[in-house]
């Protein structure tokens, strides 16, 4: 199976009054049709910016270098016009905050149908019918009535369903969901995750799930990549990542996730602060917080090394030693 979306050596930097800041450094990823890739990291780890770059949505002071190919088409060198034929049509994105991500002065129906009208040149009537169909598919009750509502008349959960429906309108090959549940209530979160699982089963799309929550990834992703300070530190199948985490940061994240099946006395946290991107530690960016740190970590940056089963990680310490 070939990858629909391939990211190769992507670096994203922002120019600020205090100098350039690299939000993403030399990231390579790929995702196949029908597969769900979970991209995990703290806020500021560069996970969102990686895909903002793919969508051509970086802030104005941001620049991206490297390559991002959608089915062989390089997205980074595409101009706005070319990008517009791909965005919404072949690659779609679901954003974190459904409360502010819908245009407040447009009716839901129109916001949905305009994607189709733009890309597939259907007429308004067909667009509306397909929008209604899609609202039903994402299980929005009374879909017909909602078409003529404004976003503020819908709850957060419903709005996120609308966002998902919007992303699905053209049945894109790649769907990027950026923290789709973070802004929602816990019960609603579960419903949205169920919906995403359903989308994954029914469509042959590649799904990228960006989240800081390993629990979200566990149920949905086939493969998981972990980012720290703009770099991928570990990547592997969801089974490997959860059963045999090979990077101290991943282990830390796993330890932080509260579990019902294991009795612990207190919540575990990773000590120290998330890194300051303007002033990254030397060597391995994680070394100030790492409990396995050795001198080498402070001066050299570990490269990603392959282990078995496509599992890769960037750490100097032997896997066994780390995996206790």
């Amino acid at each position, binding site marked *: 199976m070939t990858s629909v979306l391939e990211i190769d050596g992507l670096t994203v930097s922002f120019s600020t009054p205090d100098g350039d800041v690299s939000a993403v450094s030399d990231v390579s990823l790929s995702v196949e049709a029908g597969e769900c890739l979970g991209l995990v990291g703290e806020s500021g780890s560069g996970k969102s910016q990686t895909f903002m770059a793919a*969508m*051509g*949505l970086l802030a*104005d002071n941001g620049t991206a270098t490297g390559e991002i190919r959608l089915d062989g088409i390089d997205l980074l060198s595409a101009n*706005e*016009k070319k*990008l*517009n*034929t*791909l*965005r*919404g*049509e072949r690659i*779609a*994105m679901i*954003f974190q*905050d459904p409360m*502010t*991500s*819908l*245009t*407040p*002065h*447009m009716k839901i129906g129109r916001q949905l149908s*305009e*994607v189709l009208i*733009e*890309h597939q040149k259907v007429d308004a009537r067909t667009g509306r019918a397909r929008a209604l169909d899609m609202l039903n598919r994402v299980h929005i009750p009374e879909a017909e009535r909602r078409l003529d509502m*404004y976003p*503020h008349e819908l709850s957060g959960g419903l709005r996120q369903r609308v*966002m998902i429906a*919007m992303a699905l309108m053209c049945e894109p090959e790649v769907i990027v969901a950026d923290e789709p549940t973070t802004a929602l209530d816990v019960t609603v979160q579960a419903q949205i995750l169920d919906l995403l699982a359903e989308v994954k089963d029914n469509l042959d799309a590649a799904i990228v799930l960006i989240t800081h929550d390993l629990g979200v990834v566990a149920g949905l992703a086939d493969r998981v990549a972990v980012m720290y300070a703009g770099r991928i530190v570990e990547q592997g199948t969801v089974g490997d990542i959860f059963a045999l985490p090979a990077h101290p940061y991943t282990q830390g994240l796993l330890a932080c996730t509260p579990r019902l099946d294991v009795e612990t006395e207190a919540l575990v946290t990773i000590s120290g602060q998330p890194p300051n991107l303007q002033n990254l530690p030397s060597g391995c960016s994680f070394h100030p917080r790492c409990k396995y740190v050795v001198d080498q970590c402070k001066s050299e940056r570990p490269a990603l090394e392959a282990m078995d089963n496509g599992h890769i990680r960037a750490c100097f310490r032997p896997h066994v030693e780390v995996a206790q």
Partner: protein
Amino acid sequence: MWAYFTRRLIIAIPTLWVVITVAFFLMRLAPGGPFDQEAPLPPEIMANLKAAYGLDQPLWWQYFNYLGNLLQGDFGPSFKYKDFSVTELIGQGFPVSIQNGAAALFIAILFGIPLGTMAALRQNTGADHAAMTVAMTGIVVPNFVVGPLLALIFGIYLRDTMFALPVAGWNNGAFPNRILPVICLALPFIAYIARITRASLIETLRTNYVRTARAKGLPFRMVILRHAFKSAMIPVVTYLGPATVFLLTGSMVIETIFGLPGIGRYFVQGALNRDYTLVMGVTILAASMVIFINLLVDMTYAWLDPKVRYE
């Protein structure tokens, strides 16, 4: 919506009453009276004049008398233009002011919004800085400087060329007579509207929903026009409310410079001459315009932002 409209009009009545009352008593606090002249009138003539206009009565009597007449639509006689009633004077002056004001408002919107939009879309480029410096100049060079300068240029320096323009008088609204006053009136408003449009559009372009619209692959023009523009216009409309009132109720300065018989000039002269009824009449007219235009602005909000409901 009609219920809302009516309710707002009903609320307007006490507001108008406050305006009338405050203006009435403030005017009377001002030193001097309407019949003061360089050579004082003989006391008996003064007494007769005052009696004729009811000014010899106690102030509260005059106040209620004025209110009573007002309810019957009578603004009273002008103290200074002795052959005219205030209604007649306003009837003459208001069309002049409103025509100039409307023309200036139209020009201000026509140029201000596109200028601000272009600056926003080219943010921090040379074109943006140039447009905004010009706009700032339009704001900080007051129109009582621009007016005389334009008059100097078109009325005197270019007097014998095809560009010569009349610099004074209304001439029954002849087109050339309107050009300079309207341009002068419009300039600062073009500048303000351009600045507000730019700032607001830049802010809107950073919203999440504009990002969503871009992520949908809509052409840039459509992102701007369909998704960003309506919200971006909200601050512009907020500004347009008072600006419209100011323009329509006559710019006193422009009417003074160009010698136009509008209500702005009547008001200033009335205030200086203690022409109580004329000042009251114009104030009431202006207050009614403020109330009406605020209502229009609020209804425009409801159209721009569906979250705003008629309460």
